[in-house]
Protein backbone atom coordinates (compact mmCIF):
# COMPACT_ATOMS: atom_id res chain seq x y z
CA UNK A 1 0.00 0.00 0.00
CA UNK A 2 2.78 2.38 0.96
CA UNK A 3 4.68 1.74 -2.25
CA UNK A 4 1.57 2.42 -4.34
CA UNK A 5 1.10 5.73 -2.52
CA UNK A 6 4.76 6.60 -3.08
CA UNK A 7 4.51 5.93 -6.81
CA UNK A 8 1.31 7.96 -7.05
CA UNK A 9 2.96 10.80 -5.12
CA UNK A 10 6.03 10.75 -7.38
CA UNK A 11 3.74 10.83 -10.42
CA UNK A 12 1.88 13.85 -9.02
CA UNK A 13 5.18 15.62 -8.23
CA UNK A 14 6.44 15.09 -11.79
CA UNK A 15 3.16 16.32 -13.28
CA UNK A 16 3.24 19.38 -11.02
CA UNK A 17 6.83 20.15 -11.96
CA UNK A 18 6.00 19.91 -15.67
CA UNK A 19 3.02 22.28 -15.27
CA UNK A 20 5.09 24.74 -13.28
CA UNK A 21 7.87 24.62 -15.88
CA UNK A 22 5.30 25.49 -18.54
CA UNK A 23 3.90 28.35 -16.47
CA UNK A 24 7.32 29.78 -15.73
CA UNK A 25 8.36 29.60 -19.40
CA UNK A 26 5.12 31.40 -20.22
CA UNK A 27 6.01 34.08 -17.68
CA UNK A 28 9.34 34.50 -19.43
CA UNK A 29 8.23 34.36 -23.04
CA UNK A 30 4.70 35.77 -23.35
CA UNK A 31 4.36 39.24 -24.83
CA UNK A 32 1.90 40.94 -22.50
CA UNK A 33 1.08 41.28 -18.83
CA UNK A 34 -2.34 39.64 -19.16
CA UNK A 35 -1.03 36.63 -21.04
CA UNK A 36 1.77 36.26 -18.52
CA UNK A 37 -0.78 36.42 -15.72
CA UNK A 38 -2.78 33.71 -17.44
CA UNK A 39 0.27 31.45 -17.81
CA UNK A 40 1.48 31.92 -14.26
CA UNK A 41 -1.78 31.75 -12.40
CA UNK A 42 -3.45 28.94 -14.31
CA UNK A 43 -0.59 26.54 -15.05
CA UNK A 44 1.53 27.45 -12.05
CA UNK A 45 -1.38 27.35 -9.60
CA UNK A 46 -2.55 23.90 -10.67
CA UNK A 47 1.03 22.66 -10.76
CA UNK A 48 1.68 23.92 -7.22
CA UNK A 49 -1.43 22.19 -5.86
CA UNK A 50 -0.53 18.89 -7.55
CA UNK A 51 3.06 19.21 -6.31
CA UNK A 52 2.00 19.69 -2.68
CA UNK A 53 -0.49 16.82 -2.85
CA UNK A 54 2.25 14.61 -4.26
CA UNK A 55 4.53 15.62 -1.39
CA UNK A 56 1.77 14.72 1.07
CA UNK A 57 1.52 11.25 -0.48
CA UNK A 58 5.29 10.77 -0.54
CA UNK A 59 6.02 11.93 3.01
CA UNK A 60 4.44 8.90 4.66
CA UNK A 61 3.92 10.71 7.95
CA UNK A 62 0.44 11.63 9.16
CA UNK A 63 1.24 15.04 10.65
CA UNK A 64 3.29 16.19 7.65
CA UNK A 65 0.66 14.92 5.21
CA UNK A 66 -2.16 16.72 7.03
CA UNK A 67 -0.26 20.01 7.05
CA UNK A 68 0.66 19.63 3.40
CA UNK A 69 -2.99 19.03 2.46
CA UNK A 70 -3.92 22.20 4.38
CA UNK A 71 -1.16 24.06 2.52
CA UNK A 72 -2.54 22.78 -0.79
CA UNK A 73 -5.99 24.11 0.15
CA UNK A 74 -4.46 27.48 1.07
CA UNK A 75 -2.53 27.75 -2.20
CA UNK A 76 -5.60 26.71 -4.20
CA UNK A 77 -7.65 29.45 -2.50
CA UNK A 78 -5.06 32.25 -2.68
CA UNK A 79 -3.95 31.78 -6.29
CA UNK A 80 -7.17 32.74 -8.12
CA UNK A 81 -7.80 35.56 -5.63
CA UNK A 82 -4.38 37.02 -6.35
CA UNK A 83 -4.92 36.59 -10.08
CA UNK A 84 -8.18 38.53 -10.02
CA UNK A 85 -6.66 41.30 -7.86
CA UNK A 86 -3.62 41.70 -10.15
CA UNK A 87 -5.73 41.77 -13.33
CA UNK A 88 -8.17 44.24 -11.77
CA UNK A 89 -5.37 46.53 -10.57
CA UNK A 90 -3.63 46.52 -13.95
CA UNK A 91 -6.90 47.16 -15.82
CA UNK A 92 -7.92 49.96 -13.47
CA UNK A 93 -4.51 51.58 -13.92
CA UNK A 94 -5.07 51.68 -17.68
CA UNK A 95 -2.62 49.01 -18.81
CA UNK A 96 -3.93 48.13 -22.26
CA UNK A 97 -3.74 44.53 -23.44
CA UNK A 98 -2.03 43.74 -26.71
CA UNK A 99 -4.53 43.25 -29.52
CA UNK A 100 -4.07 41.67 -32.91
CA UNK A 101 -1.79 38.91 -34.02
CA UNK A 102 1.52 38.52 -32.33
CA UNK A 103 4.77 37.62 -34.03
CA UNK A 104 7.46 36.18 -31.85
CA UNK A 105 10.79 37.96 -32.26
CA UNK A 106 13.09 36.13 -34.65
CA UNK A 107 16.78 36.59 -35.33
CA UNK A 108 17.48 39.11 -38.05
CA UNK A 109 17.86 37.17 -41.36
CA UNK A 110 20.00 39.89 -42.93
CA UNK A 111 22.71 39.42 -40.35
CA UNK A 112 24.94 36.63 -41.56
CA UNK A 113 27.12 34.65 -39.33
CA UNK A 114 30.69 34.46 -40.64
Amino acid at each position, binding site marked *: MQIILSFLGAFLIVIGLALMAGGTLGLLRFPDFYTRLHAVRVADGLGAVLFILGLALVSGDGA*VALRLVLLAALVAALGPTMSQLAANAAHAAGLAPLAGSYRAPRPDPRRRTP
Partner: protein
Amino acid sequence: MIALIGAAGIAGLLVLTLLRLHAGPTLYDRALAASSVTAKAALICAALAAAAGRADFVDPAFALALGGFVLNLAILKFFRTGTLQAPMVREG
Protein backbone atom coordinates in the same frame (compact mmCIF):
# COMPACT_ATOMS: atom_id res chain seq x y z
CA MET B 1 14.41 11.35 -2.63
CA ILE B 2 11.75 12.47 -5.08
CA ALA B 3 10.98 15.37 -2.73
CA LEU B 4 14.58 16.57 -2.97
CA ILE B 5 14.45 16.29 -6.76
CA GLY B 6 11.24 18.33 -6.71
CA ALA B 7 12.87 20.97 -4.52
CA ALA B 8 15.78 21.25 -6.94
CA GLY B 9 13.40 21.62 -9.89
CA ILE B 10 11.40 24.32 -8.14
CA ALA B 11 14.67 26.12 -7.32
CA GLY B 12 15.59 26.16 -11.01
CA LEU B 13 12.16 27.58 -11.89
CA LEU B 14 12.62 30.22 -9.18
CA VAL B 15 15.80 31.41 -10.89
CA LEU B 16 13.87 31.75 -14.18
CA THR B 17 11.18 33.75 -12.35
CA LEU B 18 13.88 36.08 -10.98
CA LEU B 19 14.79 36.88 -14.61
CA ARG B 20 11.27 38.18 -15.22
CA LEU B 21 11.40 40.05 -11.91
CA HIS B 22 14.55 41.79 -13.17
CA ALA B 23 13.34 42.48 -16.70
CA GLY B 24 9.61 43.10 -16.30
CA PRO B 25 8.68 46.23 -18.23
CA THR B 26 5.79 47.31 -16.02
CA LEU B 27 5.11 47.41 -12.30
CA TYR B 28 2.49 44.70 -12.58
CA ASP B 29 4.88 42.25 -14.22
CA ARG B 30 7.23 42.73 -11.31
CA ALA B 31 4.46 42.31 -8.75
CA LEU B 32 3.36 39.10 -10.48
CA ALA B 33 6.92 37.77 -10.59
CA ALA B 34 7.45 38.66 -6.91
CA SER B 35 4.31 36.79 -5.85
CA SER B 36 5.43 33.85 -7.96
CA VAL B 37 8.84 33.91 -6.25
CA THR B 38 7.27 33.73 -2.78
CA ALA B 39 4.94 30.94 -3.88
CA LYS B 40 7.89 28.94 -5.22
CA ALA B 41 9.87 29.56 -2.01
CA ALA B 42 6.89 28.16 -0.07
CA LEU B 43 6.95 25.10 -2.31
CA ILE B 44 10.68 24.60 -1.64
CA CYS B 45 10.02 24.78 2.11
CA ALA B 46 7.22 22.22 1.79
CA ALA B 47 9.40 19.87 -0.27
CA LEU B 48 12.26 20.07 2.23
CA ALA B 49 9.80 19.41 5.08
CA ALA B 50 8.49 16.32 3.29
CA ALA B 51 12.07 15.16 2.66
CA ALA B 52 13.06 15.67 6.30
CA GLY B 53 9.80 14.15 7.57
CA ARG B 54 9.30 16.77 10.26
CA ALA B 55 5.91 18.44 10.65
CA ASP B 56 7.15 21.75 12.06
CA PHE B 57 9.17 22.42 8.92
CA VAL B 58 5.90 23.03 7.03
CA ASP B 59 5.18 26.20 9.02
CA PRO B 60 7.62 28.42 7.04
CA ALA B 61 5.74 27.36 3.91
CA PHE B 62 2.47 28.64 5.43
CA ALA B 63 4.19 31.86 6.47
CA LEU B 64 5.62 32.42 2.99
CA ALA B 65 2.33 31.72 1.23
CA LEU B 66 0.27 34.02 3.46
CA GLY B 67 2.99 36.69 3.72
CA GLY B 68 3.49 36.81 -0.03
CA PHE B 69 -0.23 37.17 -0.57
CA VAL B 70 -0.55 40.06 1.90
CA LEU B 71 2.60 41.74 0.57
CA ASN B 72 1.38 41.63 -3.02
CA LEU B 73 -2.03 42.89 -1.95
CA ALA B 74 -0.41 45.85 -0.17
CA ILE B 75 1.75 46.67 -3.22
CA LEU B 76 -1.24 46.64 -5.59
CA LYS B 77 -3.38 48.71 -3.21
CA PHE B 78 -0.62 51.26 -2.64
CA PHE B 79 -0.01 51.83 -6.34
CA ARG B 80 -3.73 52.07 -7.03
CA THR B 81 -4.63 54.65 -4.36
CA GLY B 82 -1.25 56.30 -3.82
CA THR B 83 -1.54 55.84 -0.06
CA LEU B 84 -2.25 53.15 2.48
CA GLN B 85 -3.99 55.63 4.79
CA ALA B 86 -7.77 55.45 4.78
CA PRO B 87 -9.49 58.82 4.30
CA MET B 88 -9.94 60.53 7.65
CA VAL B 89 -13.05 62.50 6.75
CA ARG B 90 -16.09 60.82 5.26
CA GLU B 91 -17.11 62.40 1.97
CA GLY B 92 -20.42 64.26 1.93
